[in-house]
């Protein structure tokens, strides 16, 4: 299980990286390599050249803006996991991080790598879709943006244009004080690749009712789904699991679930409902706590 031969470059700057990418046939970006290297080992991927962006400083940052937190594509997952700004302003991303593989892969894996390789059940992809993150990518000298909803088209496939380098991900930071997030997943084994995952972020009003909600589910269909209708239906309600089970089940009834040897479609739909309900419940509880503490990053 050895990768096919390739050339390797480690440019110092993004500029240089993009120049190499646009000049070389079959070049691919590598950062942490945690998704790409296994595929290369099995020769399911065989780039002619790897452009290593792991150490390009301008790709590794966490920047807070008024209405967003922007994370450099080569920021390592373990850095995001430990980051306080993200914990407060994009709590869902924070909450999902411990679920992303074992610590040994989070130590090297980057946010951009996870997004660009787009595994169907990958937690970061789900969070990006759920929160409506914007992907910034660069080809040559041109910067472009893609919304998460359109970015992931199939397992392992994105609309990232050829010869482009993902540079940053912009996560909307909600203005409401006291946000809460919930993340639940199940895999065949306790810390396996998830079979299904559910993500929720909630802002509550003073009465503890949902004011703003984002919900997503991964592994139910070929790409993660953002459940906007459900989110909308929950506005103005209390999100305790007992109160919302039926609405969630109803919202998922319309989804055509994947059906394969790992799990039946019926199972996926039911389990997704359970996970979504639990994620919402956790999110609401966390938001209530944060509200009491008066968490507000600004």
């Amino acid at each position, binding site marked *: *299980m*050895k*990768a*096919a*031969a*390739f*050339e*390797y470059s*480690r440019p110092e700057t993004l500029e240089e990286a993009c120049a190499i990418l646009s000049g070389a046939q079959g070049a691919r970006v*590598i950062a942490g*390599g*945690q998704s790409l*290297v*296994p595929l290369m*080992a*099995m020769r399911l991927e065989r780039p002619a050249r*790897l452009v*290593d962006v*792991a*150490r390009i400083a301008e790709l590794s940052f966490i920047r807070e803006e008024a209405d967003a937190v922007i994370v450099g594509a080569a920021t390592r997952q*373990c850095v995001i996991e430990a980051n306080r700004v993200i914990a407060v302003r994009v709590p869902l991303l924070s909450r999902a991080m411990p679920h992303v*593989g*074992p*610590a*040994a*892969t989070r*130590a*090297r894996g980057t946010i951009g790598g996870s997004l660009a390789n787009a595994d169907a059940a990958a937690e970061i992809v789900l969070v990006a879709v759920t929160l409506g993150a914007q992907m910034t990518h660069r080809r040559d000298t041109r910067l472009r943006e893609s919304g998460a909803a359109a970015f992931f088209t199939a397992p392992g496939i994105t609309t990232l244009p050829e010869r482009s380098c993902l540079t940053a991900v912009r996560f909307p930071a909600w203005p409401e004080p006291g946000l809460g997030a919930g993340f639940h997943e199940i895999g065949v084994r*306790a*810390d396996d690749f998830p079979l299904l995952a559910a993500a929720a972020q909630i802002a509550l009003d003073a009465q503890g009712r949902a004011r703003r909600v984002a919900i997503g589910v991964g592994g139910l269909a070929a790409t993660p789904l953002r459940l906007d209708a459900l989110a909308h239906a929950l506005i103005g309600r209390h999100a305790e699991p007992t109160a919302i089970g039926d609405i969630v089940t109803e919202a998922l009834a319309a989804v055509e679930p994947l059906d394969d040897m790992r799990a039946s479609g019926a199972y996926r739909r039911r389990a997704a409902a359970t996970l979504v309900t639990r994620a919402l419940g956790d999110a609401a509880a966390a938001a209530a706590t944060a509200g009491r503490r008066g968490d507000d990053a600004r």
Partner: protein
Amino acid sequence: MRVELTINGAARALDVEPRMTLVDCLRDVLGLTGTHVGCEHGACGACTVLVDGVPARACLMFAVQAEGYAITTIEGLTHTRGALSPLQDAFCATHAMQCGFCTPAMILTAHALLAENPAPTRAQIVAAISGVICRCTGYAQIVEAIALAAERARAPAPGTR
């Protein structure tokens, strides 16, 4: 391709193909065979080494990517020939292994855990080692070894502190 690696504190300049993984480089080029290979696709953790003190899978890193980091392998934990580190000794005290194939990865993972958290709970130990698969032991004696090492490190030696 020329690469300069820092392995167990020593700088090594080597010529490797870009496609050579760090684990193959350690084993086949440098002869550091204490790092083992169980899957080569990032699923078993047997190849775990420390990169700047943090566990990482050496089959998921090409050697050329490792330049500039401090790589620690199991060979780097024994400072004197024939003398085990306290953590390694704890692994022997509880018989935290059978075939020994996962053991270097387990010990390095535990080493990093204890460096960061000198008094881990059982749950924290379990979470830390859950990325390394052991097919032999059922893990209990490994968890016990790590707890024992932590306990021994906490109990101040007589006459100190």
